[in-house]
């Protein structure tokens, strides 16, 4: 999410799959679109039928490649070199959309002279602290004009916070010539990312690279647009966030953002991974992308928190309204301005508590009780053996799933238990397995890959003692409130005051199993006025004085009145379908769509019109809901003294950002510009810099989690992991389904005939794949869809394995996560399962003993 967020302002996919049918060129990279999102892919094919180029760049020739007009091979983990070289091509051949770049991006901004680039420091930016493995990002700030404030006194809390934190406007050079302008820095930064370098590092033939560059350049500009689609092939790297950033920069230079058929389509892999990030069951955020308080930042009091997290200019000036409305939603009347609306009772994070640290804490005995609901770490967690070892240290654990997953049964069915290495008696974890209802047995909403909430209805009662997760949660809350009812301890205040009763099920709902009131939950998420409980129709109505409540400001408007649930709106049409479901924010389907019009508010071209300024109505109109202040004229001047959106002009389309523009230069934990680093397990050295790996990557020094490093002879082959159409994730929703089990019954290893020949492996043979972390066995599938690539003089073989198997279910097999490494990208702590090294040998695991 920060990959897109840092560039454009929000982490969500900027367009919709349907909109891709309007593209003139589609680059699919880091995604196996056809296999993993087959239904979304129909729109890609529609574009192809209309003559669009469809380019698939991937280490493997997949079902997506088969449907593309062009397939381009590459080595896993080298995407930044490829994309960086495209940026280099666009800049040196002047193929960028100049008017767009000068006015809608921060390319003309001037960076302080304390900034030093990776070109100056052999792969590091200035400000790196080798001990902390982190950067001092203040060195990368812009040169700024002096701070100006409005004459009027601040009226609201939000205003006060903004006045106190206001910064001066960045200095700019609209000619883009200043040597410290972002534009010139970018040019230098990618100056060695040449087609020849692509050939060396990615293994992609130069002519194929140039074909992609040419296709993108030809299909961008006023008349034409190109879009990118990515998925886990970009995210699952120690430089994953920066891969997405590179595409964001490229698409901004080409002027493809916010326009029909343009943008970056993030293809999410779970039905509600977008929703579970918006309403985050995640360690680091609160609903609507508010930061979860942490002691490492100035978050001591509500005011501290708001001063730190609120942005004086741009949309986030509204942070106090969203935070206080959230606290009101949670604590009701108990939240007052006297007690900072209960802010102190929110837990403060003390460090990075993300997935791997959570399991490390579990392994070290710090985590005692564990809820695992709809996730399967025993097979799906990187270094799965470690995950199981950690769970074996727990006091108690609750598992909820429709089937008895590997996580539910690890204490009796895991490979180390079956082999006798570990005895069930020695696993002291007390386990409660609750059978869960499935999607058809409960109502509620999912938020899809293009941020669209869609409501589903309950269609049947769950069988036996199966209950929905919502049911379980509601009941657990009721029981806990009962247990804490008589407590007088201050720390129990949040449980006692938590608003909960209004979720109670309706006993006359016509079902045998009564679900909690999902409409009441959605209403709370949507928001309402505290006084008369009236639904709010827009986040513009949210207040920072405690008079409104809303669980997630970005969802406000989904239930604009008591009787309207827009998630259940079902009036589609042939394009954006504004009457079907509800796209956050405010039902905008193509984000940043102000950028589809020129400075004067006219569409860049008739062919690519989307949203434009209507001078007679004095407002923005068009095919989509404008992602802009509705009545702010394109000619409106920016106010240097202004706060919030007043600081932006009528032609600053990226309203979330402080300066209203794409952040081509934008700070992240590993730098303000993307830089190629090799994966932590890699066959070759970094050919671009002395710095080999992401300097800020997060390592886990734990049992059997060894890194192979560079060119490790024991593990000579590159491995990439992936999904198949026929299965889902680690398999809990597919490997128990006979119709799917028979389509892909067994784990296999895809291997080129060249490597298979060397290893004397034939299709159907058993092979064992090994890393320092563990072993997996699979059947060989020898195929020319994989190909050895040349890197300088060296041939590198890449193999691939799907991720779906485990030791439970109808279709059983090794989990590839026995092989993978726990390592983290510094921005989001995601692992690197898309590129690591392995050894492959003929035969099964057991044959060695």
């Amino acid at each position, binding site marked *: 999410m920060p990959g897109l967020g840092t560039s454009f302002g929000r982490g969500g996919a900027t367009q919709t799959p349907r909109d891709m049918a309007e593209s003139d060129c589609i680059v699919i990279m880091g995604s196996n679109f056809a296999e993993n999102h087959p239904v979304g*892919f129909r729109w890609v094919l529609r574009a192809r039928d209309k003559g669009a180029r469809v380019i698939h760049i991937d280490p493997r*020739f997949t079902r997506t490649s*088969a449907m593309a007009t062009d397939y381009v091979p590459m080595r896993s983990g080298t995407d930044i070199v490829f994309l960086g070289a495209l940026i280099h091509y666009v800049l040196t051949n002047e193929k960028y959309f100049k008017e767009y770049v000068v006015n809608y991006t921060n390319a003309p901004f001037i960076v302080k002279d304390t900034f030093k680039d990776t070109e100056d420091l052999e792969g590091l930016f200035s400000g790196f602290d080798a001990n902390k493995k982190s950067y001092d990002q203040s060195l990368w700030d812009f040169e700024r004009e002096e701070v100006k404030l409005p004459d009027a006194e601040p009226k609201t809390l939000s205003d006060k916070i903004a006045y106190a934190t206001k910064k001066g406007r960045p200095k700019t050079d609209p000619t883009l010539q200043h040597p410290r302008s972002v534009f010139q820095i970018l040019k230098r930064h990618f100056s060695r990312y040449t087609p020849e370098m692509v050939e060396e590092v990615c293994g992609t033939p130069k002519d194929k690279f140039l074909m992609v560059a040419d296709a993108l350049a030809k299909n961008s500009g006023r008349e034409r647009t190109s879009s990118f689609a990515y998925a886990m092939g970009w995210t699952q790297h120690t430089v994953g966030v920066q891969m997405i950033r590179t595409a964001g920069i490229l698409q901004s230079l080409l002027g493809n953002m916010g326009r029909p058929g343009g943008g970056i389509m993030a293809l999410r892999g779970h039905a509600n991974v977008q929703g579970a990030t918006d309403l985050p069951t995640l360690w680091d955020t609160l609903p609507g992308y508010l930061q979860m308080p942490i002691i490492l930042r100035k978050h001591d009091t509500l005011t501290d928190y708001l001063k730190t997290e609120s942005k004086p200019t741009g949309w986030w000036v509204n942070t106090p309204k969203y935070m206080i409305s959230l606290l009101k939603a949670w604590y009701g009347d108990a939240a007052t301005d006297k007690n900072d609306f209960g802010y102190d009772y929110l837990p403060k994070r003390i460090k990075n508590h993300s997935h791997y640290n959570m399991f490390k804490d579990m392994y070290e005995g710090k985590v005692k009780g564990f809820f695992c609901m709809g996730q399967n770490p025993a097979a799906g967690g990187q270094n799965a053996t470690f995950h199981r070892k950690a769970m074996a240290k727990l006091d108690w654990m609750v598992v909820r799933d429709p089937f008895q997953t590997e996580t539910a049964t690890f204490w009796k069915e895991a490979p180390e238990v079956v082999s006798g290495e570990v005895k069930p008696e020695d696993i002291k974890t007390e386990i409660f397995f609750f059978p869960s209802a499935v999607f058809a047995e409960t109502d509620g909403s999912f938020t899809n890959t293009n941020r669209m909430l869609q409501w589903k209805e309950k269609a049947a009662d769950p069988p036996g003692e199966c209950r929905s997760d919502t049911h379980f949660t509601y009941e657990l809350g009721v029981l806990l409130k009962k247990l804490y009812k008589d407590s007088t301890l201050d720390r129990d205040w949040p449980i006692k005051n938590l608003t909960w009763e209004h979720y109670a099920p309706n006993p006359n709902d016509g079902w045998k199993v009564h679900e909690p009131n999902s409409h009441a939950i959605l209403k709370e998420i949507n928001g309402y006025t505290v006084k008369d409980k009236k639904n709010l129709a827009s986040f513009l109505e949210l207040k920072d004085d405690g008079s409104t409540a809303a669980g997630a400001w970005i969802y406000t408007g989904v239930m604009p009145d008591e009787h309207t649930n827009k998630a259940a709106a079902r009036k589609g049409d042939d394009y954006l379908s504004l009457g079907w479901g509800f796209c956050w924010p405010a039902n905008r389907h193509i984000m940043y769509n102000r950028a589809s019009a020129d400075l004067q508010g006219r569409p860049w071209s008739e062919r690519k019109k989307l949203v434009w300024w209507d001078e007679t109505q004095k407002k923005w109109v068009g095919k989509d809901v404008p992602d802009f202040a509705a009545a702010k004229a394109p000619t409106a001047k920016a106010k240097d003294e202004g706060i919030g959106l007043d600081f932006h002009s009528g032609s600053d389309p990226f309203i979330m950002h402080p300066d209203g523009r794409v952040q081509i230069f934008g700070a992240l934990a590993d730098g303000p510009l993307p830089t190629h680093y090799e994966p932590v397990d890699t066959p070759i050295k970094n050919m671009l810099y002395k710095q080999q790996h992401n300097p800020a990557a997060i390592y886990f020094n734990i049992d059997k989690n060894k890194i192979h490093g560079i060119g490790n002879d024991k593990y000579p082959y590159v491995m990439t992991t992936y999904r198949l159409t026929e299965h889902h994730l680690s398999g809990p929703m597919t490997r128990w389904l006979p119709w799917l089990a028979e389509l892909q019954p067994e784990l296999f290893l895809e291997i080129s005939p060249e490597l298979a020949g060397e290893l004397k492996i034939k299709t159907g043979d058993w092979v064992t794949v090994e890393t320092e972390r563990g072993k997996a066995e699979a059947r060989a599938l020898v195929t020319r869809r994989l190909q050895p690539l040349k890197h300088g003089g060296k041939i590198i073989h890449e193999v691939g394995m799907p991720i779906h198997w485990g030791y439970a279910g109808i279709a059983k097999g090794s989990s590839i996560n026995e092989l993978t490494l726990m390592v983290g990208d510094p921005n989001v702590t995601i692992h690197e399962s898309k590129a690591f090294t392995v050894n492959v040998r003929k035969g099964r695991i057991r044959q060695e003993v």
Partner: protein
Amino acid sequence: MAERVGMLIDTSTCIGCKACGVACKEWNELPMAPEDKVEFKGLSYDNQGHLSDTNWRHVKFIEQFNEDRSDSRWLFLSDSCKHCQQAGCMEVCPTNAIIRTEFDTVFIDHDTCIGCRYCVTGCPFGVIQVSDIKGTAQKCTLCYDRLQVGEQPACAQACPTDCIEFGEVDSLMKLAEGREKLLKSQGYDNVRIYGKSDILGGLNVFYLLLDKPDVYGLPENPQLPQKNMMKSYTFSIAGMVATGVLALLAFRSRRMSHKADADQDQDKAV
């Protein structure tokens, strides 16, 4: 007037996802193949192998890559009963269990089928298999029951890229000809329609192929069962009508009871 409906299988948009096959199984309540047959087959991404009593639809995967990968393609074809105008299966069926419906599709009536397997050999495409469990010949019905209530076949409904297009054969043919032209203009020189009237009088379920039929394992020039073979079939029908039908029916019911246990297991598996 009878309506001749069928399907166009446009291989240029088939992504090999197999949704058609699963949707078919869902609607027609077909079980997973017997467990001993469920295994990694190493046939590219195909682990079903062929059409069968439990797979009325089957997606073929054809990998064609030269050594340096300069000429590479992965073709997919969703295969099923073609509902031929001249249907070999129907002609050889001794009990008239195979009938032509009001939609001009070819339908096996399971109340009349005796499981004699003549149709299995009568089909030039290898579509039909007799179910050991049900004791009758099995193949695609073009979702006859869905057609009756105005729904398109389950596979066509499910197909995410509309590569399976359902409709009146005449209009589908026009659609196919349009696609053929478009694809030719996009450089697919070998694109062709398979299943016009030159193939068994026309296939109601016909194909837009990107290359010659044999690339997809389809017969270039499929034939009806030989005339002399037909005579012997006819003869045997007469014979059966005279003496054997009851015996054959008894044979079928015996076999069904024999398979009752397996049947139950199968139910569980679904």
